[in-house]
């Protein structure tokens, strides 16, 4: 579904990715892991088009991604940033409606379905985006991404700063999306969260993929653990 080959990218003159390759298979959850500063978020921003691709290629459903985030979003790449970025001046309902304007005539995801999926949002529909708790913001950010009827969901550290009970809820919801056939690319620091969801894992180190395998492989590979994730 999503294929990166020799991707070079970064911020202006500073290069962060030096030839990143990996493939996200349709219907799978692919976790991109590694220590801080190895280029995980940069990879995601390059995929959606916020950062320009300096070399290499990124293909989505067989054709190259666009330079504009807006076109990529229309083609079905939905991005949930680490910062969640809820529109604070809009209510929960308006945040969802805004994203829903993009979906076609018979959207798979409607506001009703999102609320059904995240019941916590139900009582908060008329609340302003600024009034939500961290967990509610994350649910809204994911719900907003779903409203665009995505083919792949790109999540940057969805558990960051959340209470364990909320993390469990989000975990269960992502599991539900996965069993529904959603393709997910996940960047996460919380290892057990990531391994519990992922089919495939890529470990990043200094802007490249240093190890790849299945989540089960990684569980049994103490060396990779130590080398790329241990602190």
């Amino acid at each position: 579904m999503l294929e990166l080959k020799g991707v070079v990218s970064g911020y202006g003159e500073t290069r962060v990715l030096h030839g990143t390759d990996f493939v996200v298979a349709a219907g799978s959850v692919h976790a991109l892991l590694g220590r801080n500063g190895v280029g995980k978020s940069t990879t995601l921003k390059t995929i959606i088009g916020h950062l320009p691709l300096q070399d290499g290629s990124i293909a989505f459903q067989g054709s190259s991604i666009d330079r504009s985030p807006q076109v990529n979003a229309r083609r079905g790449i939905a991005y949930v940033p680490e910062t969640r970025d809820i529109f604070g001046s809009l209510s929960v309902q308006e945040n969802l409606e805004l994203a829903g304007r993009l979906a076609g005539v018979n959207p798979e995801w409607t506001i009703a379905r999102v609320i059904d999926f995240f019941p916590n949002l139900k009582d908060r529909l008329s609340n302003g985006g600024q009034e939500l708790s961290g967990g509610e913001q994350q649910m809204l950010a994911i719900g907003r991404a779903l409203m665009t009827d995505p083919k792949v969901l790109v999540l940057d550290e969805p558990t960051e700063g959340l209470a364990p009970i909320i993390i469990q809820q989000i975990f269960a919801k992502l599991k539900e999306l996965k069993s529904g056939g959603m393709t997910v690319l996940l960047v996460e620091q919380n290892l057990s969260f990531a391994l519990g969801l992922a089919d495939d894992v890529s470990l990043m180190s200094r802007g490249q993929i240093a190890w790849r395998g299945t989540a089960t492989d990684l569980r049994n590979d103490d060396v990779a653990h130590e080398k790329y994730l241990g602190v």
Partner: protein
Amino acid sequence: MFFQSHARTAVLLFVLIGLVLYAATGSYFAREIVVEIAILAILAISLDVAAGYGGMVSLCHGAIMGMSAYTYAILSVKFGLPTLPSAVGGIAAAAVFGTAVGWITGRTAGIFFIMATLAFGQMAYTLIFKSRWLGGDDGMGGLDRFDLSWLGINLGDSLSFAVYTVVCLGLVYLAAAWVLRSGFGRTLSGLHSNEDRLQALGVNTVIHRARALGFSGLLAGVAGILAAQHTLYISPELLFWTVSGEILIVVILGGLGTLVGPIVGAVLFVMLKHEVSEYTNHWHMVVGLVLIAAVLAGGRGIFGQIEYWAADRRRAGKEQSAEAGDA
């Protein structure tokens, strides 16, 4: 996102009715002040739509208004068209100019956007200033007001004209409120708070910026027609950047992003100007001091600050009653 609270409706009606009463009971001079306020308030609403809701602080709204006034003059004086189609043409020209500026500057933001709009405004100013056909710095005269005699209204009369501009102000407010409450208004809010995120949701932000400035231009165009009909003479000064600066001052003074605030700001600005200039020529200094005070007080503007206090008191009241409920 825009919401029309009861307080906003009350202040709006209070000001509109107040202006009509002031014109009806006052002298010719009072009516001139009402017209000045109404035109400035329309411009300020127009800029508030772009800056307060869309985050696009423009320094070319004077030029947009001037484009409308000049198009009105060209169509009616040079081409001899009746006043109504000339006015429609003028408003359309302002909308097109606004859309074009929005489209071209669509990828710029912050200080660069401000500078780009300043440049566009000054280009339009220079173009008209240098044009002999348009009278250059002498301007153009020979304009007419609408003929509303079929309604039994004579716009040549100063009171009727003052009331007519206040009615236009009310209509412009309704149009702005209606558009800001639509889905487009939501997109505009999103544009203001996080353009990157909006793009990642698949929204074409360039088109929406262009549309926003186009709509804002349309409203400014209404002010341009009124300005031309008011003095029946127009000069390139209408397009000069200081006019745009004055509009921005009015919006900030009243309260950015409140829609009612700009009207309050316009009343205050014009009143201050006329009251203070009776005592001193340095009325700009007094306006400046008020502006500094408003900005230092939190930048919410006068109406914005009052709304903020009211919300604060409501919150405090709620907490108190909640505590009482607990006990």
